[in-house]
């Protein structure tokens, strides 16, 4: 991991298109501003990790589990269709 020290209002460039700016320093909290192209997602790491964990759990579903779960939801309003051409 590259470790850089920055002061208030100083920046870090990651590649040509991502910039991280120290916007404020308040006690033990650092406020960071991020400039990135709209195709690059930016979010707090703990959220990223949580979504990743849920994805991995979602990939575990077996056919039996899915069938049992679907049975529990049978009879509820019809499902929305998939993408149309």
């Amino acid at each position, binding site marked *: 991991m590259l470790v850089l020290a920055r002061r208030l209002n100083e920046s870090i460039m990651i590649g040509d298109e991502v910039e991280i700016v120290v916007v404020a320093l308040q006690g033990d909290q650092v406020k960071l501003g991020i400039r990135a192209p*709209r*195709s690059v*997602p930016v*979010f707090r790491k703990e*959220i*990223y990790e*949580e*979504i*990743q*964990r*849920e*994805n*991995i*759990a*979602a*990939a*575990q*579903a*077996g*056919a039996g*589990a*899915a*069938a*049992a*779960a*679907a*049975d*529990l*939801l*049978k*009879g*509820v*309003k019809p*499902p*929305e269709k*998939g*993408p*149309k*051409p």
Partner: protein
Amino acid sequence: MRVRTKHLGVREVPDERIVEIRDGLYGFGGKERFALIEHGPESPFFWLQSLDEAGLAFVVMSPTLFRPDYAPAISRADLADLGIEDVKDALVLVLVVIPEDPRKMTANLQGPLVIHRGTRIGRQLISNDPAHGPRHLILEEMAARGART
């Protein structure tokens, strides 16, 4: 196209059910091409079946079944990147985790799949609404709204 699936053998899937999830799902980067396959005639689920890895498939569903007013809080930049003007025009699917006790199945409202209906290109995005978490108990939500189960 012919798709080798995790649970359904080899299936013929029409082109309009093939989607591209840019950058894949978190934790499964690089796997971007998927087929949406209906789980069954009375099931609200779809299999999101990877075209790049036959053993990779997710259960997804439309969140409106248990959260009719669900609209993920997505930034305009994220939507613009997909060419989507209004998230209400997009196909929004949520991933479902089914544990050993299927009554405890949960849906991830924080990390929905948002797909442009025309291009069939989408992404897994993060909703900034603090009310959207990664694990919502589906049956509880439906019961709370008085839905028939």
